[in-house]
């Protein structure tokens, strides 16, 4: 019993182990796999390797429409797509996905050379 009292007194004298969350945020670790942020669509060659290697079938690549689409709610953030992409155009972010109210997909369409990116729901 005295062992625990010792612990308790030590804890009283030290900083709390928890954070006061919305006011104090933890910086994400550099190596963290937070989410798939999107892709650099101009670089993509629509080879479809990312979608074939994705274990969660979260990516749809359409070569004819030149579109790349990810369902962030299916994605398990394994990072395989970013690893296998020959053009290294899949962007991973170390911050976690923010909560949202709509289950939107992220769609990127490669424009015919001038304009680069459009995002739609």
């Amino acid at each position, binding site marked *: *019993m005295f062992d625990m009292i010792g612990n308790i007194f030590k804890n009283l004298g030290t900083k709390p182990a928890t954070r006061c969350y919305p006011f104090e945020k933890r910086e994400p*670790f550099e190596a963290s*796999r937070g989410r798939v942020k999107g892709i650099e669509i101009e670089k993509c060659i629509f080879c479809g390797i990312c979608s074939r290697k994705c274990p969660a079938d979260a990516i749809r690549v359409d070569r004819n429409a030149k579109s790349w689409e990810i369902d962030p709610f299916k994605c398990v953030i394994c990072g395989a797509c970013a690893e296998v992409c020959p053009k290294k155009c899949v962007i991973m972010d170390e911050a976690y996905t923010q909560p949202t109210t709509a289950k939107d997909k992220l769609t990127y369409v490669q424009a015919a050379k001038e304009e680069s990116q459009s995002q739609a729901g």
Partner: protein
Amino acid sequence: MNGKTVIPFGPQHPVLPEPLQLKLVMQDEKIVEAIPAIGYVHRGLEKLTETKEFTQNVFVIERICGICSFKHALAYCQGMENLMGIEVPDRARFLRVIWGELHRMHSHLLWLGLLADAFGFESLFMQAWRDREKVMDIMEATAGSRVIISTNQIGGTRRDISPEMLAKIVDVVNDVKEDIERVEKVFCNDYTVKHRMVGIGVLSKENAKLWGAVGPMARGSGIAEDVRTLGYAAYGELDLEPVVETDGDCYARMKVRLRELYQSIDLIKQAIAKIPEGPINVPVKGNPNGEVISRVEQPRGEALYYMRANGGKTLDRLRVRTPTFANIPTLLKMLPGHHLADVPILILTIDPCISCTER
């Protein structure tokens, strides 16, 4: 039934984080028989592995269990590497030990917290989980994720750990060790803890063998059995003695897990001291063909993997025998004769992981 009552225990129960249901046949306050009902979190992952490419399966297999995800992936990768004759680079073998033992640490700290929670010692529960958090942070900083760390792949590991990070891991485990030393005193000497655990759920060495107990269950009953001593990954090059206690009660099983924490810390430090430089993975060529069995020691005991492939991209069959599955018969045999109030502690000391049992 003359004077007998059936009390359902679980699948939702305040002390059980896992959806295990036991129908307890009671005579007054004593248990006469325990009938298990599992199947609440079956997800069909074994079937799913038959539809994915064998390299993708690593991600599926990691999701069999949240707590020992790395060890499941390790068992699978090692099996496939044996089947395909892949030689894993030395550095990868040591990295696997480091991550594997970090997983064991966080699993045992989680368990100690849950145990303290089960006998109502809230402050001790917080203390154990606070230390666990330090291990989780290390996991995220090195592997990119807290629990499903996805660092294993067939042929090695996906990520490397930098020398600075290795030094930091040593610092953190030393820090955690100091903390564990303090909570260990409470776990081992406190009156409340002893009152709830000593002499409860005694499993003799013979019965542990007979009913096929694995992991800390078996080691708490005096069976020095630990798959790591076979020397998979880099364990063969490290100093390792199975932790054994002989009393066979709940208290002994707790002591096994406490001492295994020190063992893990020691193994991590040994591995970091010995880790060689070099590549961390080799490319996988071709498809697997044939069948293979692979075993690893998870925090809860021995896991057994069976894989059969036919030369295609997908597997024919993958079968997992998880440690909790092996320990449930022992639990059922142990329960009769105990009071209802001891059931939570007894169930917890097998460290049940129902989601991996049901997959």
